[in-house]
């Protein structure tokens, strides 16, 4: 028996519902990573929230075309990387970016490391180190910062980072090396 138009409609409706559920799960899983990445990149929570929303809106529109050539995380992070890059290159926003750069209080970044087991001195030292890394990451060129954040915050592999940035693995290694050198110089380890 051939399926009727009504049953076809119901099947399509059911598959839409399944797709919704799938995508909701994707959002729940990857939203924090995208928000972290955008927050550390643009250093403004409002802009980061907007970029994260845009990222998932783009992902939703392209969800039907996702063929699983990479992991979902890599695919979504690639969208986020492109959005952050476009945002950074938008010269019309340069002034607002300068203002917004002060919006995120990096001084409080280290205070978010709540660990009551360590001494006050150790905690202060830790907070200083965190602030130093935050400041270094802010001063890095865009591609170095992107590679640095994806590697050391999101724990992505080199090949995944390469796919997310749309560059070769060797290029990622170079960006990472320079970023790590900059961090070590700030921390006093590199000579």
């Amino acid at each position, binding site marked *: 028996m051939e399926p009727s138009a009504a049953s076809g409609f119901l099947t399509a409706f059911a598959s839409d519902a399944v797709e919704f559920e799938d995508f909701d799960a994707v959002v729940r899983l990857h939203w924090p990573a995208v928000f972290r990445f955008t927050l550390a990149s643009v250093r403004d929570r409002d802009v980061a929230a907007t970029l994260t929303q845009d990222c*998932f809106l783009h992902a939703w529109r392209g969800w039907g075309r996702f063929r699983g050539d990479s992991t979902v995380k890599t695919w979504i992070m690639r969208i986020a990387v492109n959005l952050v890059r476009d945002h950074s290159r938008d010269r019309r926003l340069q002034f607002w970016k300068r203002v917004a750069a002060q919006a995120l209080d990096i001084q409080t970044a280290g205070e978010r490391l709540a660990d009551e087991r360590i001494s006050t001195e150790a905690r202060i030292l830790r907070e200083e180190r*965190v602030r130093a890394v935050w400041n270094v990451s802010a001063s890095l060129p865009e591609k170095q910062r992107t590679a640095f954040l994806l590697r050391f915050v999101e724990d992505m592999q080199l090949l995944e980072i390469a796919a997310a940035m749309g560059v070769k693995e060797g290029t990622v290694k170079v960006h*990472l*090396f320079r970023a790590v050198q900059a961090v070590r110089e700030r921390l006093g380890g590199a000579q």
Partner: protein
Amino acid sequence: MSEHLSSRGISEWASGTRPPEVENHLHECAECREELTRLHGALSDFRDSLRSWGAAEGAPPQPMWRTENAQGAHRLRWALAAMVLVLLAAIPVYLARDRPRPGGTSAEDAVLLEQIDANVSRTVPATMEPLTSLVSWSSTNPAAATAKSLTKR
């Protein structure tokens, strides 16, 4: 490898480039290991701080993709409602198309037909009727008029 790792070697190792000779050296050299541990400690503190920051402020809002889809469904729903209204309005017009009109209108039709008959039965058009009064003799008996004019000659 007896000497310590170079600054470049340590940065390369931390970046993910891990040759076996460097790995062997790290097993033997506590100083280089400590240097790397310090670096990894700073990086993982940075990661933890960013993760806790993101977790505190980055809760997913109302999903926009559903809103977008809902807006599409909303528009479709309005279009369907408008179509139904147009159909409902068209049905009575369609049904009344062939129905005979009530008796009141047949009297009007009879008057109209009489007027048409009257116009059709005119000998001359209405605009020429004043002229016919001027030459009414010729129109009543044209043969007599002709005879009269001949006798006068």
